[in-house]
């Protein structure tokens, strides 16, 4: 399981987005940092939305008898 699943990718982006929003809402940041965070948040939100828009259900079938996990199936 080397590549993260779409949900894992999405969740890590979304968690980062939430962190950015929380830091920004706390306020009292230098102006440059405010802007950097803002732009980072915008990018994260766009990335989340892109993942949602592009998602396609991945279905894999395993036979009950198989002993090995074949992720490429």
């Amino acid at each position: 399981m080397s590549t993260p699943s779409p949900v894992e990718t999405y969740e890590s982006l979304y968690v980062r987005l939430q962190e950015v929003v929380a830091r920004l809402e706390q306020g009292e940041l230098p102006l440059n940092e405010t802007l950097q965070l803002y732009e980072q948040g915008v990018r994260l939100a766009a990335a989340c939305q892109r993942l949602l828009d592009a998602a396609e259900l991945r279905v894999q079938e395993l036979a009950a008898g198989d002993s090995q996990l074949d992720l490429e199936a």
Partner: protein
Amino acid sequence: MVHVALIMHQALSVSEVSTYLRELLESHPLLGDLWVQGEVSEFKRYAASGHCYFSLKDGEALLRGVMWKSHAARLAALPRPGDVVLAHGYLSIYPQRGDLQLYADTVLPAGVGLLYAQFEELKARLEAEGLFSLERKRPLPTLPRRIGIVTGRQSAALQDMLAILARRCPLVEVVVVPCQVQGDRAPDSIVEALYRVYEAEVDLVLLARGGGSIEDLWAFNDEAVARAVFASPVPIVTGVGHETDTTIVDFVADMRAPTPSAAAELATPELADLAALVAEARARLDSAATSALATRRALVNEAARSVALRAPLRQIGRDRQQIDDLLRRIERAFSRDAELRRVALSGLGARLATLSPQATLARGYAVVRRATDGVVLTSPTQARPGTRLQITLRDGTLDAEAAAPAPEERR
């Protein structure tokens, strides 16, 4: 000619016949303790006494029966007309009417009913063992990564579930392990498939089968299947049959869904809900950034006023300019992401509708009115250059004057 006196001497009274028959029947080794199988043609329970009166039939033959309240109270369910049952008791006659009756102490459903009796027995046993315990029910993941599905190969249930997952939450990965869902082989096949899916690193399992007769669903009342469900390392949702069907696995599972489709729905959030969360975060981002900058600007203005003489004016000027620059960059970021904003706003639709104009202003929007008559402007054509304007912001109003219209933006 028979002598009447002799006949009278030999004749039995009605009650003597009745008593004789009763004693004969009740002491008979077979009739005093027997099982009768037949179809219930009538079954009445008298509310006042609690006793039950019924008749069993079989072709042309009919047998009346009675079951006293104390016995009837022990039945899981009272038989209904049409049920084929096995009744246990003894035969005797009811002297007042001369009727032959079965005095039953047990009425068990035959056929399907026997399955039901097994079901009740297994349910009681597993419940006593703690397999249904509410404390061990686990919450479902809010957003599962990988869902394992155990159901019939190429079944309608599988198609329904995949269609719902594809529509609601195509972000998830699905691992399907097909199995036999009816017939003698089904319990073993389901157990095997469950253990297979437990190895597949899923974080949620759906065990499902479409509707069918009680016999069709029977594999889901199997003890080995129930124990395999109990052994699931991750939360498991069952969707077996229709709403009205309840199987043993439903009691063991972490959550029971009425149908396979409902199981797929319970298992996943809707993508639109996730999009709404992203849009909400996006809106909070805008409002936090805007208000952070507005606070800064107010502080700088305040500083400029209160320490005008002593403060290094150039420094204040630079701060002001920096804030203005930043606001412009934010505006550029806004327009760069116009498409995302459209999605965000449409996702927020309902919520936006409830926002007050003040809340909208707080997020950095402004209302522009013509100073002369207070008309709210929605188009540059409403204000010729030089027109006095009033701009309403979150916490105050600005007077302004219209300059030339900006070059038309292409959309």
